[in-house]
């Protein structure tokens, strides 16, 4: 049984959101359309909808996070849910409690949704298999495997600027090997029919047979960036230097860092994205990160609407939240 079969109900509706892989274009456009209708909520005087009133959302973060955790919290609150955030990296896991025990205890508090981040690939799926049937599980990042809500906010942001996916050229640059963002984004863009999908990285930062995911592989930034409409820069974690994957930050920046000069190789109105947090001067130059092509902060804003949409859909409130309340 794969993640696909567990995250869909017998009617093919999303009951968990664990991975983008294997979903249909319809699933994705439903999420994007719902997010679009929820996008205006933040501009209203009262930034709240009653959709998840009386529901309890628990953020289970086994790995540190600021952006993802806070946007999930805000998304739940704007849907009027009660929200509890547990940073388990620093609590019971250290005391040796097993993941299942932690789960059972929180389940006993009558929750409706778990938002899970964990350092192990497959953790969200594991939890989805073991929770009570009425609980929805959202994957907020599992190991190197998937970060599906990030992928959805990325394609949401792209669609707002460049909705014509078949004629779109997208390049993902940097540490593909360790990146759950890259894997999920590749799946999402493929499902939406993106015409030209590229990854750009040295061989040490590319997983084996990455081309089988449906991407063109480039090792040189200059070649890979040519004429692209979207550049997605990935975060390079500093500890990768010690793993003999790269000689130095300086050399990485020289070879793969996004500067204004290099961005000029892309399409004139190419947009620059980054899942954050950014390392200025490692993968991206400050002038690009803060420049007019950058949509990095817009991604953060969009993250809230997209997560509101996914929360509504997995708890079965798709149509109502989209239409009547917004």
């Amino acid at each position, binding site marked *: 049984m*794969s993640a696909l079969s567990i995250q869909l109900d017998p009617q093919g509706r999303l009951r968990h959101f664990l991975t983008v892989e294997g979903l249909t274009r319809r699933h994705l456009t439903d999420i994007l359309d719902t997010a679009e209708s929820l996008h205006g909520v933040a501009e209203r005087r009262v930034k709240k909808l009653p959709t998840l009133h009386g529901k309890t959302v628990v953020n289970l973060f086994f790995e540190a996070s600021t952006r993802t955790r806070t946007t999930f919290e805000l998304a739940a609150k704007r849907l009027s849910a009660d929200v509890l955030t547990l940073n388990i990296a620093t609590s019971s896991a250290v005391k040796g409690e097993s993941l299942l025990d932690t789960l059972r205890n929180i389940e006993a508090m009558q929750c409706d949704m778990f938002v899970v981040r964990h350092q192990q690939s497959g953790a969200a799926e*594991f939890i989805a298999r073991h929770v009570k049937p009425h609980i929805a599980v959202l994957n907020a990042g599992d190991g190197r495997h998937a970060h599906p809500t990030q992928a959805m906010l990325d394609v949401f942001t792209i669609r707002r600027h460049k909705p014509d996916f078949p004629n779109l050229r997208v390049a993902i640059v940097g540490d593909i090997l360790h990146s759950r963002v890259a894997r999920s984004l590749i799946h999402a863009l493929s499902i939406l029919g993106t015409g030209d999908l590229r990854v750009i990285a040295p061989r040490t930062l590319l997983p084996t047979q990455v081309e089988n995911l449906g991407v063109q592989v480039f090792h040189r930034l200059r070649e890979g960036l040519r004429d692209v409409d979207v550049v997605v820069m990935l975060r390079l974690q500093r500890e990768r230097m010690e793993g003999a994957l790269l000689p130095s930050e300086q050399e990485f920046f020289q070879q793969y860092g996004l500067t204004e000069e290099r961005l000029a190789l892309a399409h004139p109105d190419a947009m620059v994205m980054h899942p954050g947090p950014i390392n200025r001067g490692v993968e991206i130059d400050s002038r690009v990160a803060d420049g007019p092509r950058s949509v990095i902060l817009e991604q953060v804003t969009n993250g809230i609407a997209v997560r509101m949409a996914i929360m509504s859909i997995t708890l079965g409130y798709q149509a109502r939240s989209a239409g009547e309340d917004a």
Partner: protein
Amino acid sequence: MRIVIQGGRVIDPTHRTDRVADLFIADDKIAGLGQAPAGFIPEQVIDARRQVVCPGLIDLCARLREPGQEYKATIASETAAAAGGGITTLVCPPDTDPPIDEPAVIEWIRRRAKAAGQARVLALGALTHRLRGERLAEMAALKESGCVGVSDGGRPIVNTRVLRRALEYAATFNLTVFLTPVDPELGHGLAHEGQVATRMGLPGVPAAAETGMIARDLELVRDLGVRVHFGRLSSARSVELIARARAEGLPVSADVAVHSLHLTDMDLVGFDSRCHVRPPLRGLRDKDALRAGLASGALSAICSDHQPHEPDAKQAPFGDTEPGISGLDTLLSLSLHLAQAGVLPLMTVIERLTCGPAQILGLDRGHLGVGATADVCIFDAEMEGLLESAYLRSRGQNSPFIGWVLPGQVTHTLLEGRVVYQRTRPGKVSLAL
């Protein structure tokens, strides 16, 4: 006790026997085949019509979890599972807690196995003290107390100088060295490096983690002429290296874990922790090459690589689970599956489970010649059944083969002329195992 096993199809690869005949046992020895010895009056008759009678199986790698991890399994629980699976001899690697690096531990294991009385348990002694790969274990003393070989117990010896000396010292005492080839740095991962690992975001283990070590070890063997056995090969290229070394006449042999003959990395999809094993399940091409290696003789033995776990050990996200499959219950059935599928002749399957491993151990076992120890397995090769967890006798229920329909049902197991297992519910045809 005098027993006659009547009317079975006797398959004894050592003597190239495959015919319907009566097998006569007197006390703990085989007394005759076909013709009763003079004056033989049986005290017990076992009806083996329509069944196969073969030597008791010899399993080169079974972790019994004792001493040290009795919460997973015990010598008593696992030898009972072995008997139910037609296995009469188990070889236990030295990575127990404490490790088998002093005679007292071997003696202790022997006593426990004897008390259980279900299967013969042989121990591999440590190659290095505490299995740390730093200084040599007291191999001479271990040999005197009965170890059948020496081993790193799944931990590679990184320091080539230490390994070379350990090989030389072991050879001094005529001990075979059992190595499990894996480069500790390259081997640090969760799945076969390939498309499946890439999609699932699991850190990959390249085949070179295994082949690199085999190549290094073969060069040492070439220099020193010592006897080395490689355990649990997982890749096509490893089979090639061993086949070539054997063709050259190097004193090396190798085995394969039975699960590697049936599963591939595709079975990890869904993050099935029951398929978390070390070395990892590799690709289809590797699986086919391992099967071909058994047919050609490059691989001399099939083992269970038995690793029973308590349920909690497998109830976690994939990377947080412990590797290993509980394999004693399914060793024979999964091997017979290969014969049924036409991959190997039945004779070869039995050879790789009996005299093949016996030869590696340098033991006069695994055959049914007159005067041999009467270790016998009787099974119905045709009968198929659905494997359900209730039929696993091992304490470890961690088998990915639950739900498979498998051939082969053991009806009797004899250890030294004594019936240690007899199927009690002959009416229940569907319960194959």
